[in-house]
């Protein structure tokens, strides 16, 4: 009982302090970030940290940012989130799916702190969710992959069979198949977001199966490095990864969190922050396509650019019918586009992809 009281007093004191400070207009807005990998993963967490730096650059002295890296999505996450909430942060970004339940739990105990959870589906009055429509990027690079492969075999290093990843595979496959009807996908599941060793093993296994273009949905540039060594092509994932494969890299899907983070911090400063659900693609700039390598022929570059422009203009949806599911049952009719609900819960391959979705 005593302990609860102390905690309650400490919490109110912390909140009271920031509140007063805000009215005063001098105190800094404190923003925290929790990363699942090291900031040096050169992929997912790295880009979130770039977003944090964008916040620092945008607000300078008016903001104080902190981060904790390599926080496993297990029992420790709740403590770290809570420590942040307790130490006077105004806004906390929890940047991996596995932080969903702990974020919701802590948010209940700290109603005055704002939380933003990336890639999840649970919200509360003080918890927003946000993510990128990275599958739009897959449509662009899928086209390039389909055009560039000579063996007609494209490798895909996948992490977990969650909708986000399945959606990316499907979008990439549909685009590649359209560009090159003979194309075949080889998919390896590595059951991790960040494990350079496993990712490299997967890349080598794919190359042995005759793959000459690799895509990935994992966070490290290990596969890019292998592609460079073996003289095949790959795409940067989450960040550009050019320095890891100057010859291998064809293009990349870059997560550009900065503008979103800046706008959310601004909203907290202005007192206009509300719980929202953001899912932005290429058009708003959250998903970016990295510069094309000059290894890509000019006509293919032009096609890829046209696809990207059509997506930005809202003329092209990555999932436009007719599309059947893997087992042959119709999913989308001619001209029909997928609704967000189906995309968010996607648990099936589209027709033509071989192999079973791990279950």
């Amino acid at each position: 009982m005593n302990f609860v009281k102390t905690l309650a007093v400490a919490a109110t004191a912390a909140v009271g302090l920031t509140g007063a400070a805000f009215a005063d207009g001098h105190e800094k807005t404190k923003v925290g970030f929790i990363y699942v990998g090291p900031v040096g993963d050169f992929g997912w967490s790295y880009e979130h940290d770039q977003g944090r730096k964008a916040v620092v650059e945008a607000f300078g002295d008016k903001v104080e940012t902190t981060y904790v890296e390599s926080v496993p999505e297990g029992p420790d996450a709740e403590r770290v989130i809570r420590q942040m909430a307790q130490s006077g942060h105004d806004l906390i970004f929890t940047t991996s799916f596995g932080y969903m339940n702990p974020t919701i739990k802590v948010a209940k105990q700290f109603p005055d702190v704002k939380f933003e959870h990336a890639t999840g589906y649970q919200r509360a009055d003080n918890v927003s969710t946000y993510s990128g429509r990275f599958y739009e990027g897959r449509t662009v690079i899928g086209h390039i992959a389909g055009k560039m492969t000579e063996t007609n075999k494209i490798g895909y290093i996948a992490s977990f069979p969650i909708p986000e990843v399945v959606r990316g595979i499907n979008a990439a496959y549909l685009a590649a198949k359209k560009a090159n009807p003979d194309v075949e996908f080889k998919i390896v599941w590595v059951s991790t977001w960040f494990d350079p060793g496993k990712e490299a093993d997967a890349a080598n296994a794919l190359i042995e199966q005759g793959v000459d273009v690799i895509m990935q949905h994992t966070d490290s540039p290990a596969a890019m490095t292998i592609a460079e060594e073996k003289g095949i092509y790959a795409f940067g994932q989450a960040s550009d990864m050019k320095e890891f494969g100057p010859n291998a890299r064809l293009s990349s899907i870059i997560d550009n969190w900065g503008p979103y983070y800046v706008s959310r911090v601004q909203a907290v400063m202005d007192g206009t922050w509300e719980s929202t659900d953001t899912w932005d693609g290429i058009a708003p700039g959250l998903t970016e396509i990295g510069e094309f390598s000059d290894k890509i022929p000019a006509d293919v570059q032009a096609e890829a650019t046209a696809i990207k422009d059509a997506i930005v203009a809202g003329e092209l949806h990555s999932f436009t019918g007719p599309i059947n599911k893997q087992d042959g049952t119709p999913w989308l009719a001619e001209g029909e586009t997928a609704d967000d609900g189906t995309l968010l819960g996607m648990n099936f391959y589209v027709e033509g992809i071989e192999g079973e979705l791990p279950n």
Partner: protein
Amino acid sequence: MLRLEPRRRPSKLMLGLTPVLAVIATMIAGGILFAILGKNPVEAIRIIFIDPFLDPFSRTELLVKGAPLVLIAIGLSLGFRANIWNIGAEGQFVIGALAGGATGLAFYPMEGIWILPVMAIAGAAGGFAWAMIPAFLKIRFNANEILVSLMLVYVAILLLSALVSGPLRDPDGFNFPESRLFHDSATLPIIISGSRAHAGVLVALASVVIAYVLLNRHVLGYQIKLTGQAPKAAAFAGVNANRIIAICLGTSGALAGLAGMFEAAGPVGQLVPALPVGYGFTAIIVAFLGRLNPIGILLAGGVMALTYIGGETAQLTLSLPAAAISVFQGMLLFFLLAMDILITYRVRIRRTEVA
């Protein structure tokens, strides 16, 4: 040339003192590391070792983090005393969490105070069964238990991720690989309100007392110690070596399994692929830092928990990289082992002999 010569009689005083010296040496070397990284070393060490005690929530988190370490290390220490090396506690932890968690999920949404005890028994039985694999292979084929138990860790982790992606997956969870949240009857009661300190902490404390009595007052404890120190003498005295192998591996497996079940039904509240965070491996350090002595293990578990929680605070307040904290924890084991060598051996400088 440097040469190591065995000492005739290692100093008892030093054996007790070195864990403390190792902690101090780690503070100094860690301080230098932090200084190189451009942080104030004194402040960093203060944040890691003192600050967690000042904040009421962090104090309870020490219990949350320390309890599984102590519980597992107590089990491991029995085997280590008998020269039986269970390196796979992490796997037994995972299987315990799986067995206990799956039991809880099977009874969903039933309610009743009997659910948790059944889950605990299932968890301990799961860990026990997993540890019996290396035990059986060692007894029957003399297979090396270090390798077998270690390899089974990876099997266990893959089994967990397969099951939470399949049969145990949350039906309303958009196919994300995790189970549903356990309902209240399958969640451990909290012993300090407002915190995450759960009933498992009390079990960990009880295990310390039981292990102490076992080792000091019970014939089985004597047999375990004898098997480790003088296997031949133990055999002459009628100690059945196979029985000791089965008991030591089985007990450590059951305790690790129990710790896993507590973790799933306590702070996490569901089965997730990221449930194993290395308690099974860290507990090996805890066992040695505690000199395989139950009281020592209790203290060592506290120190390790402190470095984790303080380490997170240091990341938060000083922006220390996570890797620096891992190096810091690694130093602790390094200094301890290095000092152990100096206790059991003396360093001799051999001069080139004159012809």
